[in-house]
């Protein structure tokens, strides 16, 4: 089953093409079928199978533009298979639970399915140029979704988002080309071996470390490269936002773990204290900015900066437990933030506002919905027995003995998150309704089952994290351990 990842990528794309040709009414069901099968198949991706090469399974190779060194090279390890699963999962629930804008149903589903597929290409790619192409091409559907279906400030948000992230990735491109010229390959595993053997010019590696860090930190919205995030997240339509915040921002952290640290040489190691400090700053900064918001979507958006701060810290400190925690936390953040954004979408759809000053009374009006929302909030503030606790705890535990000051600051940010999230819930859910036009939030069968499934995952991972942690611990440190490819 080496073609597994091809199928996972191709199915949503095929569904997207069919959905954009058929009548608008069938577009949704076709999109759901395509992405759901892909999601089920990506569970298979977690299991070891297919050709195995240096710690990656399901390794697939086919030429695209061999003269340029561009190959369809795919392979999965624990980390990338979990992230592929997360992406396909978020694609499915985005299609199921968020209604498409009425005037452009097909374009909307097309943009979501294409964005998800390209993100998966990036996660699974073992060719660094292929990774780059998917990394950057995935921006186009997001640009279209923000610009066409986004909130009031959509034009500005779309341009800002696109320009910011592309500048970062252009730097990455120059560094990738530099590696190719020095080594003659774009193949990740070969590059990894060459760098590990010290066969690449250190000044080149230094440039790669700097450029790729800027690209990936922009993607993960690490302070001070976070400036695009606020306007973009607030104006992105919720369906695409699930992918953008849940999956594509993870490409940044994934890139740090997969590329910047192993291929950046000694200089990348020396960047670690800076990255950890920036991560801690992000945690605190995100908490402060989130606390100042009155729009619940903005609160969740800025809380993402804070959460991504932890994940970045865990990714780079060089501690196995912290790195596994970080990979797990990527998954958790995708699930929890996705759930919160979905709730936020329900609230604004039924109540006509996202301002805490105009909400209230939801606890008594919509009991199931508000109790689920409270659970998601608990997960977001990392209460024990929710998934968020496991990840954050592992990250802080692993980071503390190496960077005690930064970790202490980041831990303080955890208190901040409790403050702004619970304050937001208090103002928007409890009390009496502050507006006359309040409607009861009634969940349909599919909406209810999606939210319940998310809630089950949150508790499930919170209570029994070890199976997922075992997979998450397979995150690249085995690369190079088995030099000879073996076929199973």
């Amino acid at each position, binding site marked *: 089953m080496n073609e597994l990842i091809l199928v996972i990528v191709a199915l949503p794309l095929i569904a997207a093409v069919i959905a954009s040709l058929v009548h608008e009414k069938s577009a949704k069901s076709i999109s759901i079928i395509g992405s759901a099968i892909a999601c089920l198949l990506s569970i298979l991706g977690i299991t070891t199978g297919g050709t195995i090469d240096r710690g990656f399974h399901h390794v697939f190779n086919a030429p695209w533009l061999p003269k340029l060194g561009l190959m369809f090279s795919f392979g999965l390890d624990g980390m990338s298979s979990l992230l592929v699963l997360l992406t396909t999962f978020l694609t499915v629930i985005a299609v199921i639970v968020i209604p498409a804008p009425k005037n452009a149903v097909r374009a909307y589903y097309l943009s979501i399915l294409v964005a998800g597929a390209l993100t998966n290409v990036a996660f699974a790619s073992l060719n660094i140029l292929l990774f780059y192409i*998917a990394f950057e*091409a995935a921006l186009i559907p997001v640009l279209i979704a923000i610009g066409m279906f986004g909130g009031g400030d*959509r*034009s500005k948000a779309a341009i800002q988002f*696109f320009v910011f992230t592309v*500048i970062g990735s252009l730097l990455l491109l120059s560094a990738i080309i530099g590696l190719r010229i020095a080594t003659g390959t774009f193949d990740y595993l070969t590059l990894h071996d060459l760098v590990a053997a010290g066969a690449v010019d250190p000044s080149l590696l230094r440039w790669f470390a700097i450029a790729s860090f800027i690209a990936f930190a922009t993607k993960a919205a690490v302070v001070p490269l976070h400036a695009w995030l606020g306007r973009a997240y607030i104006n992105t339509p919720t369906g695409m936002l699930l992918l953008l915040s849940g999956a594509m921002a993870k490409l940044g952290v994934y890139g740090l773990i997969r590329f910047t640290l192993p291929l950046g040489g000694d200089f990348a190691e020396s960047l670690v204290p800076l990255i950890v400090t920036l991560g801690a700053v992000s945690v605190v900064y995100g908490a402060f900015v989130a606390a100042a918001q009155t729009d619940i979507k903005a609160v969740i958006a800025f809380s993402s900066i804070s959460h991504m701060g932890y994940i970045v810290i865990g990714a780079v400190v060089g501690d196995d437990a912290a790195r596994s925690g970080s990979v797990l936390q990527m998954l958790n953040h995708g699930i929890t933030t996705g759930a919160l954004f979905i709730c936020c979408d329900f609230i604004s759809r039924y109540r006509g506002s996202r301002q805490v000053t105009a909400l209230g009374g939801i606890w008594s009006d919509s009991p199931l919905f508000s109790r689920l929302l409270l659970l998601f909030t608990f997960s977001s503030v990392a209460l024990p027995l929710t998934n968020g606790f496991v990840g954050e705890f592992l990250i802080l535990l692993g980071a503390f003995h190496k960077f005690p000051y930064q970790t202490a600051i980041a831990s303080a940010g955890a208190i901040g998150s409790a403050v702004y999230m619970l304050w937001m819930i208090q103002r928007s859910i409890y009390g009496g309704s502050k507006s006359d036009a309040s409607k009861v939030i009634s969940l349909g069968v599919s909406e209810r089952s999606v939210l319940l499934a998310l809630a089950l995952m949150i508790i499930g991972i919170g209570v029994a994290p070890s199976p997922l942690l075992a997979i998450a611990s397979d995150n690249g440190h085995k690369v190079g351990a088995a030099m000879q490819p073996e076929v199973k």
Partner: protein
Amino acid sequence: MNFGDIHAAGAPILMAVGGCVVLLTDLASKRSATRKFGTFLAILFCIASMVCSYTLGGQLRTAFSNGIAVEGLVVTMQILLAAIAAITIVASSEILQSFHLPKGEYRALILLASAGAMVLVQSLDLVNAFVGIEIMSVAFYVLAGYRRAQAASEEAGAKYFLMGAFVSAILLFGIALIYGSVGLAMKANGLELPQGYSFTNIVTISKAIHQVPGFGTSPLFLLGAVMLIGSLMFKAGVAPFHMVAPDVYQGAPAPIAGFLATTSKVAAFTILMRFFTILAGADTGAAINVVVIGLALLSIIVGNTGAANQKSIKRLFGYSSVAHGGYIVLGLLASLGTESQAAAITAVTFYIVAYAITTIGSFAVVAWLGKDGEDADAISAYRGLGKRNLGAAITLGIFLLSLSGIPLTVGFLTKLGVFMALLSAGGTWVAVVALIGSAIGLYAYLRVISEMFFVDSTQQETSSTDGASKLVAVSAATLVIVMGVFPSQALLPSFEASVTAPPVSGDEVK
């Protein structure tokens, strides 16, 4: 002169003869009858010219006392030039009709300009290059001012003519200086003039550069070379010689603007590529490198920043062409390094072809959306286009993304090729400045995309009848994607063939 000579120069000869025939047919027949027949004749000559180029194949051959040389690169470029001419003639019939502009002369001018461009790309002797440039430019001046009734068009023609004439003088002076310096150097060092070659022949210059010590750094030669490079850069619309380009593109009707923007670049950059191959590996001091780096970076910065705040889309494309000229010059810069030369020539060739397709397509969209022959020039006219005319909006969107160099379009691969050649030639900081320029350009192109798709508009659907422009635009957009995803299948083999036979160098001459 024999049949082989005529065959080698067949492509431009056919275009020139075609120009005369079209003009005479137009004179002899009634107005209404000529319209379709004249187009048919013109296209026929373009196709004949392409066939003639194609039959020459990839191997190197010289003709007319070594005045011209033809190999894969020249064949590729001549076919491209003939295709551009044919497409322009087809795409502009509607616009000419609605302005009641004479068509016979128009077709003749396009064919003659292309003939000049073809002479330029195949010339081995700089004097031939000058003749080619003049044939091309004189037709350009007339074309730029072809809509005499409109002030902007007239202004464009006059500006283009004044600047162009001045630059031609500089070019000629540069050639004269090179002629003098080569002659003096060879005499002083007791070198024979290669049998059958003149002092202005590239082969002779190459011999002087590679065999006369210190020739590459002699002031006389450097001054001549810089004048030659500078004036060819003007013809290609590279900054700081770009001033007229946006004016000309805005003033001329869209299909003509597309023709001017592409033909001039194809021709000027091809002859520059040939001139640069003899400089590769030669000791010319830092002067030429500095000039070329300066021109490239200035173009990229000026072009991209100039594009960022335009209200007119044709001016935006004008500045964009300046910026892309800069990227091509970066490729030329890489061709000065002996190791990166082959990669650079492939990259530049691919870039030129891809740029020609994208530009012709972009201007075709402008003509397609035009009303009563007026181009849809104001960017505000594109507001909400995605709702009114989705096909046109997507087509233009593809071109804009390609111009910004986003993956899965051909624009990405062209930039990738140029940057790979540049970085392997060691131009790291140059590449970084160029990347910053790209980011500024990205904003300019995104602004148009944003107007088309992200902003609601109350404008009514403009009923467009320009079927020819629509056909050109849609086919070009398809090519942009196909070449962006499968360049090897689409076009790369021919380019690879084109560089297997490198332009003549001094080593082959005994």
